[in-house]
């Protein structure tokens, strides 16, 4: 059962059967103590941005609720009933999708901010959601270090096959969550499922085309504007093109992203946000949509527009860009669009048969199996562009990278996606004259032979005709 508690300082709406309006709630959370037994989920609507968050968290814990799973929404500035209803519906949906948190996923934020000052001088610190890494899902052992590279504060460290995490450095911005290609990094307060549930509820409850505005948690005050509904995120730097494009794909009129700082993101993610927005706009344009449906802090420059009808199905999750773009394409019934991108994790890999030795290391390292290899009479490497997240591990691993054996470009191409998995390399594998076992790819043997030169022709001949086991016999 989800309860909604609203402060009555500004409005006294009636938006559902489990709603209670409490005078002065912003300054006195004691009403939480009288919630009915069995309250599993709670949404609190406040009107004051100076409400003491630590006091609320303490009251939540007293009644057995984890504050990380309680939706606290700033309603100040929401003037119409429809926006209020939709905002609360969105908060309820997000709260009900809270997956629960482990002790590792709670981080102390002294004074209510992600700062390490004032712990002992301020009020009790509040807890915020922090990421944890599911080591069973993580593919760091395959070489992936996407989260380490993306972390703006170096809280994640690569240890040659595993990733270690320092919670005391982490600012819980969420970038690692959206960067991980396999969904191994989880922050319980900003999961794919919860954000999708919130956006779907916002759109559904509003009843008319509405814009979705991702707003940074650090913003001093939520900015409300008619025709727009807010979705709080830890940092707008965590947004990917997929996150920006998802609302239109779900039926929203437009998407906006507002960093918290007056002069940009205090974590220095402005370039990241700018390139993400540029990619999202390029994708929209290539698909034949109005690119102004996505912007950054640009609500004044465009008005929400009615979308083409949205189709169903889950789209948020690791590698969501492919799903979002495919849905946007189907909404405007196009199957031939392509665009080069700056930073969106959509890759297209090409292999040069003249320099590739078919060693297959690219396929073995690929964390998403976009590159895959098989060995029969030939070595075959195939590539599925729908799975590529442009992590670049194949480039890092290729021993012939200096000769241009493998290249990757960030782009999407609907025609290539429609073709699906395609063979990108085939090389025969000679058999051992003695035992019949495969020796090595012929391109690799040719490369070794050329490196040995004529001086070692006898060695080369042996390498080309005998497998490793039979060479010494």
């Amino acid at each position, binding site marked *: 059962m989800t309860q909604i508690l609203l402060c009555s300082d500004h409005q006294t709406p009636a938006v559902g059967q489990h709603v209670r309006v409490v005078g002065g709630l912003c300054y006195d959370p004691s009403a939480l103590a009288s919630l009915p037994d069995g309250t599993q989920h709670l949404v609190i609507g406040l009107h004051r941005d100076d409400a003491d968050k630590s006091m609320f968290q303490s009251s939540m814990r007293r009644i057995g609720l984890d504050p990380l799973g309680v939706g606290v929404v700033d309603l100040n500035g929401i003037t119409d009933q429809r926006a209020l209803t939709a905002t609360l519906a969105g908060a309820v949906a997000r709260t009900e999708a809270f997956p629960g948190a482990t002790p590792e996923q709670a981080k102390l934020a002294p004074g209510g901010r992600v700062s390490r000052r004032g712990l*002992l001088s301020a009020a009790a610190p509040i807890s915020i959601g922090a990421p944890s890494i599911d080591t069973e899902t993580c593919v760091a052992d395959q070489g992936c270090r996407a989260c380490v590279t993306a972390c703006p504060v170096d809280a994640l460290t690569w240890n040659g096959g595993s990733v270690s995490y320092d919670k005391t450095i982490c600012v819980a911005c969420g970038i690692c969550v959206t960067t991980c290609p396999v969904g191994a990094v989880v922050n319980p307060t900003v999961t794919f499922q919860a954000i999708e549930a919130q956006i779907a509820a916002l759109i559904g409850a509003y009843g008319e085309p509405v814009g979705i505005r991702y707003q940074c948690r650090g913003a001093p005050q939520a900015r409300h504007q008619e025709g727009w509904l807010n979705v709080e995120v830890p940092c707008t730097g965590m947004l990917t093109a997929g996150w920006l494009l998802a609302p239109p794909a779900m039926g929203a009129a437009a998407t906006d992203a507002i960093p918290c700082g007056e002069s940009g993101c205090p974590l220095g993610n402005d370039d990241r946000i700018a390139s993400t927005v540029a990619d999202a706009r390029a994708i929209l344009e290539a698909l034949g949509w109005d690119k102004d449906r996505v912007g950054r802090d640009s609500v004044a420059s465009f008005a929400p527009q009615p979308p083409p009808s949205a189709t169903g199905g889950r789209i948020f999750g690791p590698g969501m860009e492919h799903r979002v773009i495919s849905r946007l394409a189907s909404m405007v019934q196009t199957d031939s669009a392509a665009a080069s991108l700056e930073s969106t994790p959509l890759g297209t890999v090409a292999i040069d048969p003249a320099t590739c030795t078919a060693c297959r290391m690219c396929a073995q390292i690929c964390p998403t199996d976009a590159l895959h290899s098989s060995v029969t009479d030939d070595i075959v490497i195939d590539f599925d562009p729908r799975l590529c997240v442009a992590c670049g591990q194949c480039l890092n691993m290729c021993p012939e990278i200096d000769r241009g054996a493998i290249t990757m470009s960030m782009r999407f191409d609907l025609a290539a996606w429609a073709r699906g998995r395609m063979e990108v390399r085939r090389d025969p594998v000679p058999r051992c004259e003695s035992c019949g076992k495969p020796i090595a790819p012929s391109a690799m043997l040719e490369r070794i032979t050329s490196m040995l030169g004529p001086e070692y022709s006898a060695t080369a001949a042996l390498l080309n005709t005998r497998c490793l086991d039979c060479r010494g016999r």
Partner: protein
Amino acid sequence: MSASDLARLRQGAYRLIGAGFAPPQPDRSELIVGSIPVLADLGLFDYSFSLYLVDYARALAADDPGELAPAYMALFEVGAGGAACSPAESAWLAGPNSSEVAVILSDLRRSYLRYGLRPSDSRSESIDHATVEFDVMASLCGIEAEQRAAGRPVTRTVGHQIEFLDNHLGRWLPLLTKAVVRHNGHPTYTALALAAHALVIHDQELLALIDEQEPSSP
């Protein structure tokens, strides 16, 4: 809440968990359950580990200590190949060589002496038992609380706490917790292990923040 109160709260939380790892007795269970309101007055619910502590106290309150004893014994004391989840540091950090146990125990003894602590002669547990190690942390928090109340410097005491968690309790407790949860021998002890883990995880972060503002090393 003052910094001294915070240290007192942490002292109480460590003492509570330490008592939980001791063999169950009716008066001990009552003491643990009864300490929650006392800790609440010290600001327990300001901190995320409170949820786990209360879960444990609730589970304990619903248990009959007589029925809890066999579960304790099976989980922490005896078993075909030893205890299923021995609550002792050396069981988790020492290798197969018995000399490694001695190294751990002598290191602990040196640490306790350096902190100005000496295990009571009346205690039957080994000095690396969870009850002792949680009590050590409780004692260090108590020293910190007194120092803060008297306006004396606490940097050395905070440094000892950080060192003890980093070198001892914080290293092996996660392993014990994982084992207890996996073993799922009794819900009360699963709740105890989770509460212990939540407290230690929280305290490591809290102490790092305190140390940043009041550096313990020159």
